[in-house]
Protein backbone atom coordinates (compact mmCIF):
# COMPACT_ATOMS: atom_id res chain seq x y z
CA UNK A 1 0.00 0.00 0.00
CA UNK A 2 2.98 2.27 -0.04
CA UNK A 3 1.91 3.64 -3.40
CA UNK A 4 -1.46 4.78 -2.21
CA UNK A 5 -2.34 8.36 -2.66
CA UNK A 6 -1.75 10.07 0.61
CA UNK A 7 -1.50 13.45 2.11
CA UNK A 8 2.17 13.81 2.24
CA UNK A 9 2.90 12.45 -1.18
CA UNK A 10 0.20 14.60 -2.58
CA UNK A 11 1.67 17.56 -0.82
CA UNK A 12 5.03 16.97 -2.37
CA UNK A 13 3.46 16.48 -5.76
CA UNK A 14 1.63 19.75 -5.54
CA UNK A 15 4.74 21.52 -4.48
CA UNK A 16 6.98 19.97 -7.08
CA UNK A 17 4.36 20.08 -9.79
CA UNK A 18 5.39 17.11 -12.04
CA UNK A 19 4.03 16.88 -15.62
CA UNK A 20 0.29 16.34 -15.75
CA UNK A 21 0.32 13.25 -17.93
CA UNK A 22 2.77 11.54 -15.64
CA UNK A 23 0.57 12.24 -12.65
CA UNK A 24 -2.58 11.01 -14.38
CA UNK A 25 -0.94 7.72 -15.38
CA UNK A 26 0.37 7.15 -11.93
CA UNK A 27 -3.02 7.96 -10.44
CA UNK A 28 -4.87 5.49 -12.69
CA UNK A 29 -2.60 2.59 -11.94
CA UNK A 30 -2.70 3.38 -8.24
CA UNK A 31 -6.46 3.57 -8.28
CA UNK A 32 -6.80 0.20 -9.97
CA UNK A 33 -4.44 -1.49 -7.56
CA UNK A 34 -6.27 0.09 -4.65
CA UNK A 35 -9.60 -1.20 -5.82
CA UNK A 36 -8.25 -4.73 -6.22
CA UNK A 37 -6.90 -4.82 -2.71
CA UNK A 38 -10.07 -3.35 -1.17
CA UNK A 39 -13.04 -5.54 -2.06
CA UNK A 40 -15.44 -3.47 0.05
CA UNK A 41 -14.47 -0.37 -1.87
CA UNK A 42 -14.76 -2.20 -5.17
CA UNK A 43 -18.20 -3.53 -4.29
CA UNK A 44 -19.38 -0.09 -3.22
CA UNK A 45 -18.03 1.54 -6.37
CA UNK A 46 -19.71 -1.08 -8.56
CA UNK A 47 -23.11 -0.53 -6.95
CA UNK A 48 -22.78 3.24 -7.24
CA UNK A 49 -21.86 2.94 -10.91
CA UNK A 50 -24.88 0.73 -11.61
CA UNK A 51 -27.23 3.05 -9.74
CA UNK A 52 -25.80 6.07 -11.54
CA UNK A 53 -26.34 4.36 -14.88
CA UNK A 54 -29.96 3.69 -13.97
CA UNK A 55 -30.35 7.29 -12.90
CA UNK A 56 -28.83 8.59 -16.11
CA UNK A 57 -30.90 6.33 -18.34
CA UNK A 58 -34.15 7.26 -16.60
CA UNK A 59 -33.21 10.87 -17.16
CA UNK A 60 -33.21 10.39 -20.94
CA UNK A 61 -35.94 9.35 -23.39
CA UNK A 62 -34.38 5.88 -23.23
CA UNK A 63 -36.06 5.49 -19.84
CA UNK A 64 -38.83 3.39 -21.37
CA UNK A 65 -36.28 0.77 -22.43
CA UNK A 66 -35.67 -0.19 -18.80
CA UNK A 67 -38.82 1.09 -17.09
CA UNK A 68 -41.86 0.31 -19.13
CA UNK A 69 -44.39 2.51 -17.37
CA UNK A 70 -44.69 6.19 -16.64
CA UNK A 71 -43.83 6.41 -12.93
CA UNK A 72 -46.66 8.87 -12.38
CA UNK A 73 -49.32 7.13 -14.42
CA UNK A 74 -52.34 6.39 -12.27
CA UNK A 75 -54.39 3.27 -12.70
CA UNK A 76 -56.77 3.03 -9.79
CA UNK A 77 -58.25 -0.24 -10.96
CA UNK A 78 -54.91 -2.02 -10.64
CA UNK A 79 -54.08 -0.86 -7.17
CA UNK A 80 -51.96 -2.85 -4.71
CA UNK A 81 -51.35 -5.81 -6.99
CA UNK A 82 -48.46 -8.15 -6.23
CA UNK A 83 -45.40 -8.66 -8.40
CA UNK A 84 -46.27 -10.11 -11.82
CA UNK A 85 -44.85 -10.36 -15.32
CA UNK A 86 -46.40 -6.98 -16.12
CA UNK A 87 -45.42 -5.29 -12.90
CA UNK A 88 -42.20 -6.85 -11.62
CA UNK A 89 -42.36 -5.08 -8.29
CA UNK A 90 -46.16 -4.94 -8.15
CA UNK A 91 -48.28 -1.79 -8.08
CA UNK A 92 -48.85 0.79 -5.37
CA UNK A 93 -51.95 2.32 -3.81
CA UNK A 94 -52.75 4.28 -6.96
CA UNK A 95 -51.92 1.46 -9.34
CA UNK A 96 -48.57 2.93 -10.31
CA UNK A 97 -45.85 0.51 -11.36
CA UNK A 98 -43.44 0.13 -8.44
CA UNK A 99 -40.63 -1.15 -10.65
CA UNK A 100 -40.75 1.93 -12.86
CA UNK A 101 -41.04 4.18 -9.85
CA UNK A 102 -38.08 2.52 -8.19
CA UNK A 103 -35.87 2.96 -11.25
CA UNK A 104 -36.97 6.56 -11.64
CA UNK A 105 -36.42 6.90 -7.90
CA UNK A 106 -32.71 6.38 -8.52
CA UNK A 107 -32.74 9.58 -10.52
CA UNK A 108 -34.39 11.58 -7.77
CA UNK A 109 -32.58 10.10 -4.78
CA UNK A 110 -29.15 10.21 -6.41
CA UNK A 111 -29.81 13.75 -7.53
CA UNK A 112 -30.54 14.75 -3.96
CA UNK A 113 -27.50 12.87 -2.68
CA UNK A 114 -25.09 14.17 -5.31
CA UNK A 115 -26.36 17.74 -5.05
CA UNK A 116 -25.92 17.65 -1.30
CA UNK A 117 -22.43 16.12 -1.47
CA UNK A 118 -21.22 18.60 -4.09
CA UNK A 119 -22.80 21.70 -2.56
CA UNK A 120 -21.66 20.84 0.94
CA UNK A 121 -18.13 20.22 -0.33
CA UNK A 122 -17.96 23.54 -2.17
CA UNK A 123 -19.47 25.56 0.66
CA UNK A 124 -17.54 23.65 3.32
CA UNK A 125 -14.17 24.10 1.61
CA UNK A 126 -14.77 27.78 0.94
CA UNK A 127 -15.93 28.52 4.47
CA UNK A 128 -13.34 26.21 6.03
CA UNK A 129 -10.46 27.96 4.29
CA UNK A 130 -11.95 31.36 5.02
CA UNK A 131 -12.28 30.73 8.72
CA UNK A 132 -8.93 28.96 8.85
CA UNK A 133 -7.31 32.17 7.65
CA UNK A 134 -9.39 34.90 9.19
CA UNK A 135 -9.91 35.18 12.91
CA UNK A 136 -12.91 37.47 12.71
CA UNK A 137 -14.65 35.24 10.17
CA UNK A 138 -13.70 32.28 12.33
CA UNK A 139 -15.46 33.75 15.32
CA UNK A 140 -18.62 34.69 13.48
CA UNK A 141 -18.96 31.71 11.14
CA UNK A 142 -18.02 29.08 13.68
CA UNK A 143 -20.53 30.44 16.24
CA UNK A 144 -23.24 30.10 13.59
CA UNK A 145 -22.00 26.62 12.75
CA UNK A 146 -22.01 25.70 16.45
CA UNK A 147 -25.56 26.98 16.64
CA UNK A 148 -26.63 24.90 13.66
CA UNK A 149 -24.81 21.86 14.98
CA UNK A 150 -26.47 22.12 18.33
CA UNK A 151 -29.76 21.00 16.81
CA UNK A 152 -30.30 17.31 16.31
CA UNK A 153 -30.04 17.07 12.53
CA UNK A 154 -33.38 15.51 11.72
CA UNK A 155 -35.23 17.93 13.98
CA UNK A 156 -33.54 20.91 12.35
CA UNK A 157 -34.36 19.47 8.94
CA UNK A 158 -37.97 18.93 10.01
CA UNK A 159 -38.36 22.54 11.15
CA UNK A 160 -36.59 23.88 8.06
CA UNK A 161 -38.75 21.93 5.64
CA UNK A 162 -41.87 23.06 7.48
CA UNK A 163 -40.69 26.64 7.00
CA UNK A 164 -39.45 26.47 3.43
CA UNK A 165 -42.09 24.15 2.09
CA UNK A 166 -41.44 20.72 0.70
CA UNK A 167 -40.00 20.66 -2.78
CA UNK A 168 -37.07 18.71 -4.15
CA UNK A 169 -34.81 21.76 -4.15
CA UNK A 170 -35.81 22.70 -0.63
CA UNK A 171 -35.07 19.23 0.65
CA UNK A 172 -31.59 19.52 -0.90
CA UNK A 173 -31.15 22.98 0.58
CA UNK A 174 -32.22 21.80 4.02
CA UNK A 175 -29.83 18.85 4.05
CA UNK A 176 -27.03 21.14 2.85
CA UNK A 177 -27.73 23.54 5.72
CA UNK A 178 -27.71 20.68 8.17
CA UNK A 179 -24.48 19.12 6.84
CA UNK A 180 -22.40 22.21 6.12
CA UNK A 181 -21.22 22.84 9.70
CA UNK A 182 -19.45 19.51 10.08
CA UNK A 183 -17.83 19.81 6.64
CA UNK A 184 -16.64 23.30 7.55
CA UNK A 185 -15.17 21.97 10.77
CA UNK A 186 -13.30 19.20 9.01
CA UNK A 187 -11.82 21.58 6.44
CA UNK A 188 -10.99 24.17 9.08
CA UNK A 189 -9.09 21.53 11.05
CA UNK A 190 -7.04 20.57 8.02
CA UNK A 191 -6.35 24.20 7.16
CA UNK A 192 -5.24 25.03 10.67
CA UNK A 193 -2.77 22.15 10.69
CA UNK A 194 -1.51 22.82 7.15
CA UNK A 195 -0.81 26.50 7.50
CA UNK A 196 2.00 25.78 9.92
CA UNK A 197 3.60 23.15 7.65
CA UNK A 198 7.05 23.78 6.25
CA UNK A 199 6.06 23.80 2.63
CA UNK A 200 3.42 26.43 3.24
CA UNK A 201 5.89 28.51 5.14
CA UNK A 202 8.34 28.05 2.30
CA UNK A 203 5.74 29.28 -0.15
CA UNK A 204 5.01 32.22 2.08
CA UNK A 205 8.68 33.02 2.40
CA UNK A 206 9.06 32.95 -1.37
CA UNK A 207 6.51 35.76 -1.54
CA UNK A 208 3.30 33.92 -2.50
CA UNK A 209 0.15 35.90 -1.64
CA UNK A 210 -2.29 34.59 0.94
CA UNK A 211 -4.89 34.00 -1.74
CA UNK A 212 -2.40 32.01 -3.79
CA UNK A 213 -1.39 29.95 -0.79
CA UNK A 214 -5.00 29.31 0.12
CA UNK A 215 -6.04 28.10 -3.29
CA UNK A 216 -2.87 26.55 -4.70
CA UNK A 217 -1.31 25.04 -1.64
CA UNK A 218 -3.99 24.46 0.90
CA UNK A 219 -7.27 23.84 -0.95
CA UNK A 220 -6.02 20.82 -2.95
CA UNK A 221 -4.88 19.17 0.23
CA UNK A 222 -8.26 19.31 1.82
CA UNK A 223 -9.45 17.12 -1.03
CA UNK A 224 -8.89 13.75 0.60
CA UNK A 225 -10.78 14.39 3.84
CA UNK A 226 -13.47 16.27 1.90
CA UNK A 227 -14.04 13.33 -0.46
CA UNK A 228 -14.33 10.95 2.46
CA UNK A 229 -16.71 13.26 4.28
CA UNK A 230 -18.71 13.91 1.09
CA UNK A 231 -19.30 10.19 0.60
CA UNK A 232 -20.71 10.03 4.12
CA UNK A 233 -23.01 12.97 3.37
CA UNK A 234 -23.98 11.36 0.08
CA UNK A 235 -25.22 8.34 1.98
CA UNK A 236 -26.71 10.46 4.75
CA UNK A 237 -28.66 12.63 2.31
CA UNK A 238 -30.50 9.61 0.92
CA UNK A 239 -31.42 8.53 4.42
CA UNK A 240 -32.45 12.00 5.57
CA UNK A 241 -34.62 12.40 2.50
CA UNK A 242 -36.24 9.07 3.31
CA UNK A 243 -36.77 10.02 6.96
CA UNK A 244 -38.40 13.30 5.95
CA UNK A 245 -40.64 11.35 3.60
CA UNK A 246 -41.49 9.01 6.48
CA UNK A 247 -42.43 11.98 8.66
CA UNK A 248 -44.63 13.26 5.83
CA UNK A 249 -42.71 16.44 5.01
CA UNK A 250 -40.27 15.32 2.31
CA UNK A 251 -40.28 15.67 -1.44
CA UNK A 252 -43.85 15.85 -2.83
CA UNK A 253 -45.34 12.38 -2.92
CA UNK A 254 -45.90 12.13 -6.66
CA UNK A 255 -42.19 12.56 -7.35
CA UNK A 256 -40.79 9.04 -7.06
CA UNK A 257 -37.84 9.26 -4.70
CA UNK A 258 -36.95 6.05 -2.90
CA UNK A 259 -37.88 7.63 0.40
CA UNK A 260 -41.28 8.61 -0.96
CA UNK A 261 -42.03 5.21 -2.42
CA UNK A 262 -41.11 3.51 0.85
CA UNK A 263 -43.17 6.02 2.83
CA UNK A 264 -46.16 5.47 0.55
CA UNK A 265 -45.87 1.74 1.13
CA UNK A 266 -45.78 2.19 4.87
CA UNK A 267 -49.52 1.72 5.29
CA UNK A 268 -49.38 -1.33 3.06
CA UNK A 269 -46.56 -3.27 4.72
CA UNK A 270 -49.14 -5.80 5.76
CA UNK A 271 -51.02 -6.27 2.52
CA UNK A 272 -48.58 -5.09 -0.12
CA UNK A 273 -45.07 -5.45 1.26
CA UNK A 274 -43.62 -5.02 -2.25
CA UNK A 275 -44.40 -1.31 -2.34
CA UNK A 276 -41.87 -0.54 0.37
CA UNK A 277 -39.67 -3.62 0.07
CA UNK A 278 -38.09 -3.24 -3.37
CA UNK A 279 -37.27 0.45 -3.20
CA UNK A 280 -36.01 -0.29 0.33
CA UNK A 281 -33.49 -2.74 -1.14
CA UNK A 282 -32.35 -0.19 -3.71
CA UNK A 283 -32.04 2.50 -1.08
CA UNK A 284 -30.25 0.25 1.39
CA UNK A 285 -27.80 -1.03 -1.22
CA UNK A 286 -26.96 2.44 -2.43
CA UNK A 287 -26.43 3.88 1.03
CA UNK A 288 -24.38 0.82 1.97
CA UNK A 289 -22.30 1.27 -1.16
CA UNK A 290 -21.68 4.94 -0.47
CA UNK A 291 -20.65 4.17 3.09
CA UNK A 292 -18.32 1.37 1.99
CA UNK A 293 -16.77 3.73 -0.54
CA UNK A 294 -16.36 6.32 2.20
CA UNK A 295 -14.73 3.79 4.54
CA UNK A 296 -12.53 2.44 1.77
CA UNK A 297 -11.38 5.89 0.73
CA UNK A 298 -10.66 6.77 4.32
CA UNK A 299 -8.41 3.73 4.64
CA UNK A 300 -6.76 4.44 1.33
CA UNK A 301 -6.36 8.17 1.68
CA UNK A 302 -5.43 8.43 5.33
CA UNK A 303 -1.64 8.38 5.58
CA UNK A 304 -1.82 7.43 9.21
CA UNK A 305 -3.17 4.04 8.22
CA UNK A 306 -0.54 3.30 5.65
CA UNK A 307 1.59 0.38 6.55
CA UNK A 308 -0.69 -0.71 9.33
CA UNK A 309 -1.43 -3.95 7.57
Amino acid at each position, binding site marked *: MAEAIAYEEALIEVYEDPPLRERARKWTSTAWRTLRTHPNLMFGMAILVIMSLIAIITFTPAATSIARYDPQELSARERVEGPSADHWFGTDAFGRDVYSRTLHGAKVSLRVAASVAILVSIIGVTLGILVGYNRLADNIVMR*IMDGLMSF*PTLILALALVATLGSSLNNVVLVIVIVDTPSMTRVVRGVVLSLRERTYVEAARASGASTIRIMFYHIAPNTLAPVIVQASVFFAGAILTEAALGFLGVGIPEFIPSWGNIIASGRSFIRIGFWIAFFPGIFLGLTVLAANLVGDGLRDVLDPRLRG*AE
Partner: protein
Amino acid sequence: MTAYVIKRVIAVIPVLIFVGVLTFSLVHLAPGDAANIMAGDYAGPDDVKIIREELGLNKPLHTQFLDWAGRTLRGDLGKSIYSGKTVAELVSARMGPTISLTVAGGILAVLIGVPLGVLAAWRFGSIWDRAIQVWAALGISIPGFWLGFILIWGLAVSLRWFPVIGYVSPTEDFFGWIRSITLPTLLLGVNGSAIIIRMTRASVLEVLREDFIRTARAKGLAERIVLFRHALRASAIPIITVIGFLAAALITGAVVTETVFTIPGLGRLVAETVQTRDFPIVQSMLMLLAAFYVGVNLIVDLAYVFVDPRVRL
Protein backbone atom coordinates in the same frame (compact mmCIF):
# COMPACT_ATOMS: atom_id res chain seq x y z
CA MET B 1 -10.09 24.33 35.48
CA THR B 2 -12.74 26.72 36.84
CA ALA B 3 -11.62 29.42 34.44
CA TYR B 4 -11.87 26.95 31.60
CA VAL B 5 -15.38 25.95 32.57
CA ILE B 6 -16.44 29.60 32.83
CA LYS B 7 -14.91 30.36 29.47
CA ARG B 8 -16.71 27.44 27.90
CA VAL B 9 -20.01 28.41 29.46
CA ILE B 10 -19.68 32.01 28.26
CA ALA B 11 -18.92 30.79 24.75
CA VAL B 12 -22.28 29.04 24.84
CA ILE B 13 -24.23 32.29 25.17
CA PRO B 14 -23.86 33.62 21.60
CA VAL B 15 -24.66 30.14 20.31
CA LEU B 16 -27.88 30.05 22.28
CA ILE B 17 -28.85 33.54 21.10
CA PHE B 18 -28.34 32.44 17.52
CA VAL B 19 -30.33 29.31 18.20
CA GLY B 20 -33.14 31.39 19.70
CA VAL B 21 -33.40 33.77 16.77
CA LEU B 22 -33.19 30.89 14.33
CA THR B 23 -35.90 28.84 16.03
CA PHE B 24 -38.19 31.85 16.26
CA SER B 25 -37.77 32.65 12.57
CA LEU B 26 -38.12 29.02 11.54
CA VAL B 27 -41.26 28.50 13.49
CA HIS B 28 -42.95 31.76 12.54
CA LEU B 29 -42.01 31.77 8.90
CA ALA B 30 -43.49 28.32 8.50
CA PRO B 31 -46.79 28.54 6.67
CA GLY B 32 -49.80 27.47 8.67
CA ASP B 33 -50.65 28.19 12.25
CA ALA B 34 -52.47 26.66 15.17
CA ALA B 35 -55.77 28.44 14.49
CA ASN B 36 -56.65 26.28 11.53
CA ILE B 37 -55.74 23.05 13.25
CA MET B 38 -57.55 23.92 16.43
CA ALA B 39 -60.70 24.83 14.49
CA GLY B 40 -60.84 21.44 12.80
CA ASP B 41 -61.78 20.35 9.30
CA TYR B 42 -65.36 21.55 9.24
CA ALA B 43 -64.52 25.08 10.33
CA GLY B 44 -64.68 27.93 7.86
CA PRO B 45 -62.85 31.25 7.38
CA ASP B 46 -64.82 33.15 10.03
CA ASP B 47 -64.01 30.62 12.77
CA VAL B 48 -60.33 30.61 12.00
CA LYS B 49 -60.18 34.39 12.00
CA ILE B 50 -61.73 34.57 15.47
CA ILE B 51 -59.44 31.91 16.91
CA ARG B 52 -56.41 33.59 15.43
CA GLU B 53 -57.36 36.86 17.09
CA GLU B 54 -58.04 35.15 20.40
CA LEU B 55 -54.66 33.45 20.34
CA GLY B 56 -52.83 36.62 19.32
CA LEU B 57 -51.46 34.88 16.25
CA ASN B 58 -52.39 37.82 14.04
CA LYS B 59 -50.04 40.23 15.80
CA PRO B 60 -47.10 41.54 13.75
CA LEU B 61 -44.07 39.29 13.81
CA HIS B 62 -41.76 41.73 15.59
CA THR B 63 -44.29 42.19 18.41
CA GLN B 64 -44.52 38.43 18.80
CA PHE B 65 -40.74 38.18 18.79
CA LEU B 66 -40.35 40.80 21.52
CA ASP B 67 -43.08 39.12 23.58
CA TRP B 68 -41.37 35.80 23.22
CA ALA B 69 -37.82 37.08 23.85
CA GLY B 70 -38.99 38.93 26.95
CA ARG B 71 -40.71 35.86 28.32
CA THR B 72 -37.81 33.56 27.53
CA LEU B 73 -35.33 35.85 29.27
CA ARG B 74 -37.53 35.78 32.34
CA GLY B 75 -37.34 32.00 32.20
CA ASP B 76 -40.95 31.61 31.04
CA LEU B 77 -40.81 29.04 28.25
CA GLY B 78 -44.45 29.53 27.38
CA LYS B 79 -47.33 27.10 27.19
CA SER B 80 -49.02 25.01 24.59
CA ILE B 81 -51.54 26.80 22.42
CA TYR B 82 -53.74 23.73 22.47
CA SER B 83 -53.61 22.39 25.99
CA GLY B 84 -52.45 25.39 27.99
CA LYS B 85 -49.88 23.11 29.60
CA THR B 86 -46.45 24.59 30.25
CA VAL B 87 -43.36 23.35 28.48
CA ALA B 88 -42.10 22.06 31.81
CA GLU B 89 -45.25 19.99 32.29
CA LEU B 90 -45.11 18.58 28.78
CA VAL B 91 -41.42 17.82 28.93
CA SER B 92 -41.58 16.13 32.29
CA ALA B 93 -44.49 13.98 31.11
CA ARG B 94 -42.56 13.00 27.99
CA MET B 95 -39.01 12.75 29.31
CA GLY B 96 -39.06 9.28 30.84
CA PRO B 97 -39.40 7.30 27.61
CA THR B 98 -36.76 9.31 25.79
CA ILE B 99 -34.25 9.00 28.61
CA SER B 100 -34.90 5.26 28.89
CA LEU B 101 -34.49 4.74 25.17
CA THR B 102 -31.43 6.90 24.63
CA VAL B 103 -29.58 5.63 27.70
CA ALA B 104 -30.37 1.99 26.97
CA GLY B 105 -29.67 2.49 23.26
CA GLY B 106 -26.41 4.27 24.06
CA ILE B 107 -25.26 1.51 26.41
CA LEU B 108 -26.11 -1.17 23.87
CA ALA B 109 -24.29 0.79 21.18
CA VAL B 110 -21.15 1.04 23.29
CA LEU B 111 -21.32 -2.62 24.33
CA ILE B 112 -21.50 -3.73 20.71
CA GLY B 113 -19.47 -0.96 19.16
CA VAL B 114 -16.32 -0.73 21.23
CA PRO B 115 -15.33 -4.43 21.20
CA LEU B 116 -16.10 -4.79 17.50
CA GLY B 117 -14.24 -1.59 16.70
CA VAL B 118 -11.18 -2.77 18.61
CA LEU B 119 -11.34 -6.17 16.96
CA ALA B 120 -11.54 -4.61 13.51
CA ALA B 121 -8.53 -2.40 14.20
CA TRP B 122 -6.53 -5.21 15.75
CA ARG B 123 -7.19 -7.47 12.76
CA PHE B 124 -6.89 -4.62 10.26
CA GLY B 125 -7.51 -5.76 6.67
CA SER B 126 -8.58 -9.25 7.68
CA ILE B 127 -11.90 -10.87 6.90
CA TRP B 128 -13.00 -9.87 10.45
CA ASP B 129 -12.24 -6.28 9.72
CA ARG B 130 -14.15 -6.37 6.47
CA ALA B 131 -17.13 -8.11 7.98
CA ILE B 132 -17.28 -5.64 10.84
CA GLN B 133 -16.98 -2.76 8.42
CA VAL B 134 -19.87 -4.10 6.40
CA TRP B 135 -21.92 -4.44 9.59
CA ALA B 136 -21.04 -0.88 10.51
CA ALA B 137 -21.95 0.35 7.06
CA LEU B 138 -25.22 -1.61 7.17
CA GLY B 139 -26.01 -0.17 10.57
CA ILE B 140 -26.03 3.34 9.22
CA SER B 141 -27.48 2.38 5.83
CA ILE B 142 -30.76 0.79 6.82
CA PRO B 143 -33.46 3.38 7.39
CA GLY B 144 -34.55 3.17 11.01
CA PHE B 145 -38.25 3.10 10.23
CA TRP B 146 -37.78 0.24 7.79
CA LEU B 147 -35.94 -1.89 10.34
CA GLY B 148 -38.56 -0.85 12.89
CA PHE B 149 -41.37 -2.25 10.74
CA ILE B 150 -39.55 -5.55 10.43
CA LEU B 151 -38.95 -5.76 14.19
CA ILE B 152 -42.60 -4.95 14.90
CA TRP B 153 -44.04 -7.44 12.47
CA GLY B 154 -41.55 -10.17 13.31
CA LEU B 155 -41.16 -9.99 17.05
CA ALA B 156 -44.20 -8.06 18.25
CA VAL B 157 -47.07 -9.03 15.99
CA SER B 158 -46.15 -12.54 14.89
CA LEU B 159 -44.29 -13.86 17.93
CA ARG B 160 -45.94 -11.47 20.42
CA TRP B 161 -42.79 -11.25 22.51
CA PHE B 162 -42.98 -7.50 22.77
CA PRO B 163 -45.70 -4.85 22.78
CA VAL B 164 -46.50 -3.18 19.49
CA ILE B 165 -47.10 0.31 20.79
CA GLY B 166 -46.55 2.34 23.89
CA TYR B 167 -44.27 2.71 26.84
CA VAL B 168 -44.54 1.38 30.38
CA SER B 169 -42.92 3.30 33.20
CA PRO B 170 -40.38 1.26 35.22
CA THR B 171 -41.97 2.39 38.49
CA GLU B 172 -45.26 0.95 37.32
CA ASP B 173 -44.11 -2.40 35.98
CA PHE B 174 -40.41 -3.10 35.71
CA PHE B 175 -40.61 -6.07 33.37
CA GLY B 176 -43.22 -4.28 31.33
CA TRP B 177 -40.74 -1.44 31.01
CA ILE B 178 -38.02 -3.79 29.82
CA ARG B 179 -40.35 -5.30 27.25
CA SER B 180 -41.61 -1.95 26.05
CA ILE B 181 -38.16 -0.55 25.39
CA THR B 182 -36.46 -3.67 24.02
CA LEU B 183 -37.29 -3.21 20.35
CA PRO B 184 -36.68 0.54 20.18
CA THR B 185 -33.43 0.04 22.09
CA LEU B 186 -32.37 -2.59 19.61
CA LEU B 187 -33.11 -0.21 16.77
CA LEU B 188 -31.18 2.66 18.32
CA GLY B 189 -28.38 0.33 19.44
CA VAL B 190 -27.76 -1.12 15.99
CA ASN B 191 -27.51 2.33 14.49
CA GLY B 192 -25.42 3.74 17.33
CA SER B 193 -23.06 0.77 17.37
CA ALA B 194 -22.26 1.42 13.73
CA ILE B 195 -21.15 4.95 14.54
CA ILE B 196 -19.06 3.76 17.48
CA ILE B 197 -17.43 0.92 15.55
CA ARG B 198 -16.24 3.32 12.89
CA MET B 199 -14.82 5.77 15.36
CA THR B 200 -13.24 3.17 17.64
CA ARG B 201 -11.65 1.35 14.76
CA ALA B 202 -10.13 4.52 13.39
CA SER B 203 -8.73 5.74 16.70
CA VAL B 204 -7.39 2.38 17.83
CA LEU B 205 -5.72 1.95 14.44
CA GLU B 206 -4.04 5.27 14.85
CA VAL B 207 -2.83 4.49 18.34
CA LEU B 208 -1.58 1.03 17.40
CA ARG B 209 0.98 2.69 15.18
CA GLU B 210 2.38 4.89 17.92
CA ASP B 211 5.76 4.34 19.46
CA PHE B 212 4.63 3.46 22.92
CA ILE B 213 2.65 0.53 21.58
CA ARG B 214 5.67 -0.71 19.69
CA THR B 215 7.59 -0.39 22.88
CA ALA B 216 4.99 -2.31 24.77
CA ARG B 217 5.00 -5.03 22.16
CA ALA B 218 8.76 -5.08 22.10
CA LYS B 219 8.74 -5.55 25.86
CA GLY B 220 6.91 -8.79 25.12
CA LEU B 221 3.60 -7.82 26.72
CA ALA B 222 0.69 -10.03 25.80
CA GLU B 223 -1.25 -8.72 22.83
CA ARG B 224 -4.40 -8.63 24.95
CA ILE B 225 -2.79 -6.33 27.46
CA VAL B 226 -1.34 -4.11 24.78
CA LEU B 227 -4.72 -3.84 23.19
CA PHE B 228 -6.89 -3.18 26.19
CA ARG B 229 -4.56 -1.50 28.63
CA HIS B 230 -2.65 0.70 26.25
CA ALA B 231 -4.36 1.06 22.95
CA LEU B 232 -7.93 1.34 24.08
CA ARG B 233 -7.13 3.76 26.85
CA ALA B 234 -5.12 5.97 24.56
CA SER B 235 -7.93 6.09 22.09
CA ALA B 236 -10.45 6.99 24.75
CA ILE B 237 -10.65 10.64 23.70
CA PRO B 238 -12.04 10.17 20.24
CA ILE B 239 -14.35 7.50 21.61
CA ILE B 240 -15.67 9.90 24.24
CA THR B 241 -16.15 12.46 21.50
CA VAL B 242 -18.23 10.09 19.53
CA ILE B 243 -20.29 9.12 22.52
CA GLY B 244 -21.11 12.81 22.95
CA PHE B 245 -22.03 12.90 19.32
CA LEU B 246 -24.04 9.75 19.84
CA ALA B 247 -26.21 11.55 22.39
CA ALA B 248 -27.34 13.90 19.64
CA ALA B 249 -27.68 11.09 17.12
CA LEU B 250 -29.84 9.11 19.52
CA ILE B 251 -32.16 12.07 20.01
CA THR B 252 -32.49 12.36 16.25
CA GLY B 253 -33.08 8.63 16.11
CA ALA B 254 -35.66 9.02 18.85
CA VAL B 255 -37.90 11.09 16.57
CA VAL B 256 -38.20 8.22 14.12
CA THR B 257 -38.04 5.42 16.70
CA GLU B 258 -40.71 6.94 18.91
CA THR B 259 -42.90 7.47 15.87
CA VAL B 260 -42.48 3.88 14.67
CA PHE B 261 -43.13 2.36 18.10
CA THR B 262 -45.73 4.95 19.14
CA ILE B 263 -43.79 5.91 22.24
CA PRO B 264 -44.76 9.20 23.86
CA GLY B 265 -41.30 10.74 24.16
CA LEU B 266 -39.69 14.06 23.42
CA GLY B 267 -38.85 13.17 19.83
CA ARG B 268 -42.49 12.59 18.95
CA LEU B 269 -43.43 15.69 20.89
CA VAL B 270 -41.21 17.78 18.63
CA ALA B 271 -42.44 16.13 15.43
CA GLU B 272 -46.08 16.54 16.46
CA THR B 273 -45.79 20.10 17.60
CA VAL B 274 -44.06 21.02 14.34
CA GLN B 275 -46.96 19.46 12.48
CA THR B 276 -49.59 21.18 14.59
CA ARG B 277 -47.66 24.47 14.63
CA ASP B 278 -47.71 24.70 18.42
CA PHE B 279 -45.21 27.56 18.26
CA PRO B 280 -44.34 28.07 21.95
CA ILE B 281 -43.62 24.40 22.43
CA VAL B 282 -41.60 23.96 19.23
CA GLN B 283 -39.48 26.98 20.07
CA SER B 284 -38.79 25.95 23.61
CA MET B 285 -38.15 22.33 22.67
CA LEU B 286 -35.62 23.32 20.02
CA MET B 287 -33.94 25.64 22.52
CA LEU B 288 -33.86 22.95 25.18
CA LEU B 289 -32.48 20.32 22.81
CA ALA B 290 -29.82 22.74 21.62
CA ALA B 291 -28.91 23.57 25.21
CA PHE B 292 -28.76 19.86 25.98
CA TYR B 293 -26.45 19.24 23.07
CA VAL B 294 -24.21 22.14 24.07
CA GLY B 295 -24.19 20.77 27.60
CA VAL B 296 -23.18 17.30 26.42
CA ASN B 297 -20.35 18.80 24.42
CA LEU B 298 -19.21 20.71 27.46
CA ILE B 299 -19.14 17.53 29.50
CA VAL B 300 -17.25 15.78 26.72
CA ASP B 301 -14.64 18.52 26.71
CA LEU B 302 -14.27 18.29 30.46
CA ALA B 303 -14.02 14.52 30.21
CA TYR B 304 -10.94 14.94 28.01
CA VAL B 305 -9.15 16.57 30.89
CA PHE B 306 -10.17 13.80 33.18
CA VAL B 307 -9.21 10.94 30.89
CA ASP B 308 -6.08 12.22 29.24
CA PRO B 309 -3.42 13.84 31.37
CA ARG B 310 -1.81 15.15 28.21
CA VAL B 311 -4.61 17.67 27.77
CA ARG B 312 -3.58 20.66 29.84
CA LEU B 313 -5.61 23.74 30.00
